């Protein structure tokens, strides 16, 4: 098996049972594994709610390390609709030509830097810097700020040996508090400034609400984007023909970015709390217990995808749900897609070949199932085009 193969971890259980129980800190989760069930449950926000105790819909649960409600993620309609409308246009800015050009400058200079080195560890030396610098564009703040975030290292929200490290999480929460205070003193046109000026239900957004949006923007867009970039590099290292196809046929990028996000599904699943007892796929979801929507499993469902375990860069029909589905579908998807488009374009222009030197896989443990989601470290050699 190649380094860039990401096996379908849930196949057996998806086909035989459809639901996988997982015990998380004595608040068990029934993971829904089939495409149709996941989409249906994601759509049914009245039965399966996000607006539970803050941290509870995340698996592993963050209720013990977080009090701030993430907005709009941990809110249900109708409140969700109003919050989301406040930020929707802001998160579409990545479609503007200036934004795309900004991403291109970031990716070009980061790639040039590592090409001079030759051999690199991808996550710390390339993916994290690109992700952090790109995020300054989304927040509309000076690029300098990325230095601070890069210095936190990859594991800001988790420590090496624990997914739930309150002290680590506090670094981010304290940082965001301080930034909000700065912008209150000196209003600007960053996401902080825009949110502080926004009105929700006819009143100004509170500091706590602004913090809730920003924690989500930092947390939701960090590991996901890092894995998307890193895994893609691993894939291209082992598929040099794909690198050339992408170069010769620039249109291919449009379907390739969707296929890569389907195959890697950087966010494995997300929970919901059951508002009212309901049957799903033979499982009785009891009131106030948790289910989860397993995007990663759904995206390998053979009933929907032909050859689900193959990367088909020109897959025409690809109704993947890697960015979620329905009410809470990913707000950062426009940014993530645009970044990957630019990344592939610049990479194929500058890089001749990529060799993998060493790889340590990052395997998530979901009880009966172990899922490879990315790498803890990936050492490669990059050979520039002449």
């Amino acid at each position: 098996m190649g380094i860039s193969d990401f096996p379908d971890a849930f196949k057996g259980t998806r086909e035989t049972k459809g639901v996988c129980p997982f015990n998380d800190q004595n608040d068990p989760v029934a993971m829904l594994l089939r495409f149709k069930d996941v989409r249906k449950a994601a759509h049914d926000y009245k039965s399966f709610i996000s607006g539970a105790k803050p941290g509870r819909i995340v698996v592993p649960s963050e209720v013990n390390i977080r009090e701030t409600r993430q907005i709009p993620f941990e809110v249900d309609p109708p409140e969700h609709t109003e919050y989301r409308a406040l930020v929707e246009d802001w998160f579409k800015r990545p479609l503007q030509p200036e934004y795309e050009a900004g991403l291109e400058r970031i990716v070009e200079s980061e790639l040039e830097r590592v090409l001079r080195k030759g051999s690199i560890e991808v996550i710390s030396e390339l993916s994290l810097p690109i992700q952090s610098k790109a995020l300054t564009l989304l927040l509309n703040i000076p690029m300098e700020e990325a230095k601070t975030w890069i210095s936190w290292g990859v594991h800001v929200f988790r420590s090496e040996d624990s997914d739930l490290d309150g002290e680590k999480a506090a670094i981010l929460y304290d940082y965001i508090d301080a930034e909000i205070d700065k912008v209150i003193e000196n209003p600007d046109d960053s996401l902080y400034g825009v949110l502080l000026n926004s009105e929700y239900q006819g009143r100004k957004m509170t500091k706590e609400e602004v913090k809730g949006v920003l924690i989500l923007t930092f947390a939701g867009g960090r590991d996901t984007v890092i894995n998307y970039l890193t895994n893609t590099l691993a894939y291209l290292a082992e598929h040099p023909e794909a690198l050339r196809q992408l170069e010769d046929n620039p249109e291919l990028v449009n379907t390739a970015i969707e296929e890569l996000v389907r195959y890697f599904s950087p966010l494995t699943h997300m929970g919901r709390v059951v508002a009212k007892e309901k049957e799903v796929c033979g499982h009785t979801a009891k009131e106030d217990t948790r289910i989860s929507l397993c995007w990663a499993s759904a995206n390998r469902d053979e009933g929907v995808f032909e050859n689900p375990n193959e990367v088909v860069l020109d897959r025409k029909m690809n109704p993947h749900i890697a960015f979620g589905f329905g009410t809470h579908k990913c707000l950062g998807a426009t940014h993530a897609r645009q970044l990957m488009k630019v990344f592939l374009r610049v990479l194929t222009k500058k890089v001749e070949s990529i060799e993998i030197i060493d790889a340590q896989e990052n395997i998530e443990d979901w009880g009966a199932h172990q899922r490879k989601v990315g790498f803890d470290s990936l050492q490669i050699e990059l050979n520039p085009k002449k």
Partner: protein
Amino acid sequence: MAKITYITKSGETFEYEATSGNLMELAVKNKVPGIDGDCGGVCSCATCHVHVAPEFYGKLDAPSEIESDMLEFDDNVSEYSRLCCQIPVSDLVDGIKVEVAN
């Protein structure tokens, strides 16, 4: 060459002529409000949902199962709903009118 008309939620009309591509690409290129085409046409986002004028609906190839399933969950669905990334530009659709659903 096919002439295609989009009518937006606010009642504005946009008319274009095209020879290739699909109805989503044409709308996105011309920034027709309400058609975003987030997924680039792979049937994963439903941000290209339109209602096809009844006299044209039957002329089109029937939607695939994937498209129908996608529409099942979208807002403002009618019996004339289509994801317009799945409607190729061709002589068959010359003169077609579609209303943007969202």
